[in-house]
């Protein structure tokens, strides 16, 4: 990776669903350690963009560069191995696994071969210690032994973040991490995220405007698949086009 270069760079990304342009010539960059937010109204194409960055969907054209490397053609699991971790708008964990085992699975992906067929995985400290650390980082350590399926909605969101952290990624792709969390849980998650500042590059998709303006170093506004504005929070807040297109007067507070 070119030192000082962006961790993530999108160049002219396009994606259509039938006649609908859902990603329309999107270019943006996320610097190491920076939190870059993508905001936009419902259906603007934010999740579709995250899918293309993570490799779940292939763009029609354009390129995805990760740490300077062109990963446009790589499948999701290969990008994950390179250090690209994502969470899903609809929480995705392994419900039958304990919180700890969910995180340990992520540790396993980056440490040693998983084609080991006989030695029990549970209790391997090389897996459990980093997994526990990740749970601690999101404040879920006391729920380590609870099956993920039995966690509350907010706790599952925390767990998904812990799983992403357990991958020791270079970029966190978070699709509405605060959606559906109660006010208290949201506050805690914002605290966790701001604690990650500087250690991870983060691309944050979020509707919660106070959280976005509190966390982001830079913001891109997506409307109908197009980036209509990019800049630091203050500039975005003041941009009249953005206010008209997206931020209602009360949201812009």
């Amino acid at each position, binding site marked *: 990776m070119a030192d000082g270069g962006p961790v993530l760079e999108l160049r002219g990304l396009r994606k259509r669903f039938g006649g609908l342009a859902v990603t329309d010539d999107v270019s943006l960059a996320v610097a190491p350690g920076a939190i870059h937010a993508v905001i936009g109204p419902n259906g603007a194409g934010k999740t579709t963009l995250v899918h293309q960055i993570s490799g779940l969907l292939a763009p029609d054209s354009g390129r995805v560069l990760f740490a300077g490397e062109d990963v446009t053609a790589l499948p999701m699991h290969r990008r*994950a191995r390179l250090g690209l971790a994502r969470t899903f708008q609809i929480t*995705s*964990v*392994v419900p039958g696994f304990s919180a700890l085992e969910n995180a340990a699975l992520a540790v396993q*992906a980056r440490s040693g071969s998983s084609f080991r067929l*006989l030695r029990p*995985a549970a209790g391997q400290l090389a897996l459990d210690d980093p997994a526990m650390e990740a749970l601690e980082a999101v404040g879920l350590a006391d729920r380590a032994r609870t099956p993920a399926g039995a966690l509350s909605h907010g706790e599952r969101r925390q767990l998904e973040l812990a*799983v992403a952290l357990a*991958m020791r990624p270079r970029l966190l792709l978070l699709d509405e991490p605060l959606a559906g969390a109660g006010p208290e849980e949201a506050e805690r998650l914002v605290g966790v995220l701001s604690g990650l500042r500087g250690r991870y590059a983060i691309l944050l998709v979020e509707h919660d405007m106070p959280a976005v303006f509190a966390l982001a170093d830079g913001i891109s506004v997506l409307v109908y698949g197009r980036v209509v504005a990019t800049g630091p929070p203050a500039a975005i807040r003041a941009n009249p086009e953005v206010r008209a297109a997206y931020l209602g007067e009360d949201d812009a507070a």
Partner: protein
Amino acid sequence: MERASAALREASPALLLLGLLAAAPFLGFGQGYTMTLLARAMILAMAAVSLSVLVGGAGLVSLGHAAPLGVGAYAVVALDAAGVTEGLVVLPGAAAAAALFALATGAVAIRTSGVHFIMITLAFGQMAFFTAGSLTAYGGDDGYTLYGRTELFGTRLLEDRLGFHWVCLGLLAAVLLLCRLLLASRFGRVLRASRENPLRVRAVGFEPYPFRLLAYALMGAVAGLAGALLANATEFVAPSYMAWQRSGDLLFMAILGGLGSLPGAVAGALAIVLLEEWLSELTEHWRLIFGPLLILSVLFLRGGLAGLPAQLGGLLRRG
């Protein structure tokens, strides 16, 4: 200490079943015919356990598991026809042949999922069935009679009923242990996670396909081993080894036992083999009773046979 006792508690259903099977010859079940029946049950139990790993562990619902079993049996035939009867060659050879079969068919089948996977495994099973029927060198549709059983270290251990009993029991115990370790390993963890949520597994950096394929091949090998033993038990091999009804029976044993429970699959195999035998002695229309019994068991045994103790306990407490 605590961990050791927890492990013991977990292993106790398997130990109980294996203990009963070990004691059977001394508890009045030592007559020739009963022993034959028990051997058959233990052999089918191995295949059912391997299918249980696929279905309950990996989420691969195969309706063609009789095919690798049959491949194992035909490997015994092919080696017998070539004059090879040493078990140290025959048994690994049967397992390897079945593993290769599973690897080749699985490479295609595992690219599909859900109903498609069920259909494609069924189709491969039928292909194997018809292929076996066309092997004129091995008797075609009429099958092939083995005039001697496989030997072990040059001794005729498998000819002896009790000897055969111990070999089947030992191999069943080994299969149970290895499958249990497999599911608990790093490999098994990825396999189980892929069953529950393949998207999550990809997102952390694993492609489920090679894990599923290796599991499919390994469990095919176990079925092949069972097939080789079954060929010895009956001293006869025919295409019916691979009939889809047998695949259905194996699936039923695994499900009756309780999905994902390995000792459950053993109990399921024992229950079905013995019940089938007992009912067919009572009446020639035994299938009329057998079918409804299976349906009732699916309706009322929620956790399968493995869940039976808990279910009975609940009834007693309520009653």
